[in-house]
C-alpha cells in the first residue's frame, strides 16, 4: 500500500492489484469503521478504484500520525471479518438517446468509427455494475463499457452537464444526478431521480453492487417519465427487474 498526501487533512491509500484482490482495502475500512468515522478525528472515507481516501480533523491529528496508524491497520495480523458487499439489485433504467440530449453522440461516433446508432446499441447492450458512488450525491460509477466506448475524458470539462445526463469515459458509464461541471461524454438522458433528500438516510437510490441495464426511449416518453417519476409517492422500485 502506497500513501499519497492530499494536503494536511487527507491522504489516499493506493493498493496494488494483488492487495485489492486480497481485500486489504476492506480490512482497512473495517478497522477505520471500528475506529469511528465522523467521530473523533476521522471525518470521512472515500473508496474509489484501487484506492481509499481518508480524511481527518486537522485540529486533532497530523499526517505522520495518520500514516503510521493506517499502515498499522493494514499490516496488523488477524484480518477478521471484512465488510460484506450487499446483494445487488437489478434495475432497468430508461434512457433517451436522442441527439437533443446526447450532446456527444456525434463526437463519440467519429472517435470510435461507429455510427451514432451503433454507439447507442453498444451502450444499451451491456449490463453495468455499480462500482462506486461518489463525485456528486448519488452519482454512480458503473462498469464496464465495451472497449469501443472507452473514451478519454474531454480535454476541457463542460461547465454545465445537464442533470440526468448519461455519459461514458474511461471504460465506465454514469448518470449525472445533478447539473454540474463534468468531463465525460454525454450519450443521452435518464429521468430516474437518483438522489432524493426526502428519503433521508436512504437518499441515494443505487448501492454499490447493484446492476443497471439501459433501455432506449423516445423524447416524448422521456418527458412524460420525468414528470411522473417526480410525483409524490411514485415508487421507483417498479424499475427493478423481476
Amino acid at each position, binding site marked *: 500500500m502506497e500513501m499519497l498526501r*492530499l494536503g494536511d487533512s487527507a491522504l489516499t491509500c493506493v493498493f496494488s492489484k494483488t492487495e485489492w484482490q486480497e481485500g486489504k482495502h476492506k480490512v482497512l475500512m473495517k478497522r477505520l469503521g471500528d475506529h469511528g468515522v465522523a467521530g473523533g478525528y476521522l471525518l470521512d472515507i472515500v473508496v474509489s478504484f484501487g484506492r481509499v481516501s481518508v480524511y481527518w480533523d486537522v485540529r486533532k491529528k*497530523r499526517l505522520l500520525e495518520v500514516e503510521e496508524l493506517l499502515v498499522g491497520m493494514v499490516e496488523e495480523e488477524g484480518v477478521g471479518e471484512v465488510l460484506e458487499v450487499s446483494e445487488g439489485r437489478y434495475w432497468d433504467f430508461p434512457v433517451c438517446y436522442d441527439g437533443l440530449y446526447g450532446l456527444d453522440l456525434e463526437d463519440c461516433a467519429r472517435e470510435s468509427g461507429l455510427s451514432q446508432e451503433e454507439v447507442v446499441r453498444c451502450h444499451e447492450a451491456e449490463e453495468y455494475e455499480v462500482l462506486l*458512488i461518489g*463525485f456528486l450525491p448519488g452519482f454512480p460509477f458503473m462498469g464496464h463499457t465495451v472497449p469501443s466506448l472507452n473514451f478519454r475524458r474531454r480535454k476541457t470539462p463542460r461547465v454545465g452537464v445537464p442533470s440526468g445526463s448519461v455519459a461514458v469515459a474511461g471504460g465506465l458509464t454514469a448518470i449525472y444526478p445533478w447539473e454540474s461541471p463534468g*468531463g465525460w461524454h454525454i450519450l443521452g438522458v435518464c429521468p430516474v431521480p437518483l438522489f432524493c433528500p426526502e428519503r433521508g438516510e436512504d*437518499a441515494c437510490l443505487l448501492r454499490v453492487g447493484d446492476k443497471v441495464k439501459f433501455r432506449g426511449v423516445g423524447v416524448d416518453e422521456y418527458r412524460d417519465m420525468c414528470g411522473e417519476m417526480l410525483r409524490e409517492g411514485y415508487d421507483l422500485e417498479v424499475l427493478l427487474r423481476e
Partner: protein
Amino acid sequence: MGSKVRVLREGMMMSFQDRGRLGFYGSGVPRSGALDEQLLRMGNRILGNDEEEAGLEFFYRGPLLRVDEGEVCMVLAGGLGCEVRGRDGSVRKRVDSFESFCVRSGESVDVGEVREGTVGYILVEGGWKLESFLGSFSFYGRAKLGTVVGDILETRSVSDGRREGYCMVDFCMGLRKKVRVMWGPQADYFSEEAREIFATSCFEVESTRDRMGLRLKGAGLESEKGYDVRSEGLVPGVIQVPGSGHPIVLLNDCQTMGGYPKIGTVISADLRHVGQWGGGDKVSFEVVGEEEAYEAFRVLMEEEAGMKVLERSYDRLGLSDLGGTGFVDALSPFHFPGSLEEGEESE
C-alpha cells in the same frame, strides 16, 4: 418562537452555511460549509453563540433585510458594513463588521458590497432557524440539501437586546493572495519546469467562480503523464489540472472524487483566503512541507483563541469617551465603567 426577517433584496448566491456536512463523502455528498470558517466562528463568538452556528453567506453584495416580527441581534462578518434604517427608511446608524447590533420590528438592514474579499456572513444571536440534513445546516445547491433561503428567514429566538454593542476590535481580515500549498498526489506528473511555473508564477482568477471552485488563468501546466488518473478522493483546497493546463482550485462544494492530476493542495490554515478570492484577483502559491502546514494552523488557532470580545459600552450609556480606546473587555468582571478595581471592594 423566533423573529421573522423578510428578504427585500437578495444578496448574491446567498446560502446558509455552518461547518459543513461530514461523514457522507461515501455517498458522494460534498462537505459544503462556510468558505471562510474563521469569519463564521468569530462572528458567532461576538454574539455569544456556539462558534459553529450557521450563518447566511453571500458573495460580493449583501441583502436588504427587514425585521417583520420580534427583534434580532446580529453581526456582520467580512470586509463590509451595513446601514440600519428606521421604519421611515431613514438611516438610524451605520455599523461595520464584527460589531453586534439590534434591529427591531419594522426596521431594515441594508448590507453593502463586500469591500475586502468576496464572501461575507450575517449571523444572528441564538442562530437562524434551519432544517438540518445529515447532521448539518449547510445548504448544498446542486442537490438542494439543507434550507433554501426563502423570502422569510426565521431566527430561533427573539433577542432581548442585551447582546447589542459587543465587538472584536483586533480581528483583521488579513487576506492573502499568495497561499501556501503542499505538493499534490500527482505532482510527479508535471515536469520540473511546470512545477517551477506553478510555484513561482502569478495566476488570474476567472470570474466564473462559485462555491465548488475557481479556475485560474496563466501559464499552462503541462502534464508529462497525461490528464487522466484513476478517480480518487478530493478535498477542498486541492488543485487539479485538466487537459487545458489551467489549474482549478476546488472549494467546499467540490465533488467527492475526480480524475484529473492534482498538482498541489492548499494547506488548511490558508483555505479561507482562497474562498475569499474573486474574479480578476492575481494569485500565487508557495510550496511548503507538512511541518509548516501544521505550524501555520497552530498559529492561526492561537491567534483565533486570542481574539477578545469587547463591549462597546459607551454606545449604550451615551458616553463618548472612556478615556482609553472606548472599548472594555466584556469577559472581564471589571468591565463596567466605574466598577471597582481589584482590592478596592468594600465589605
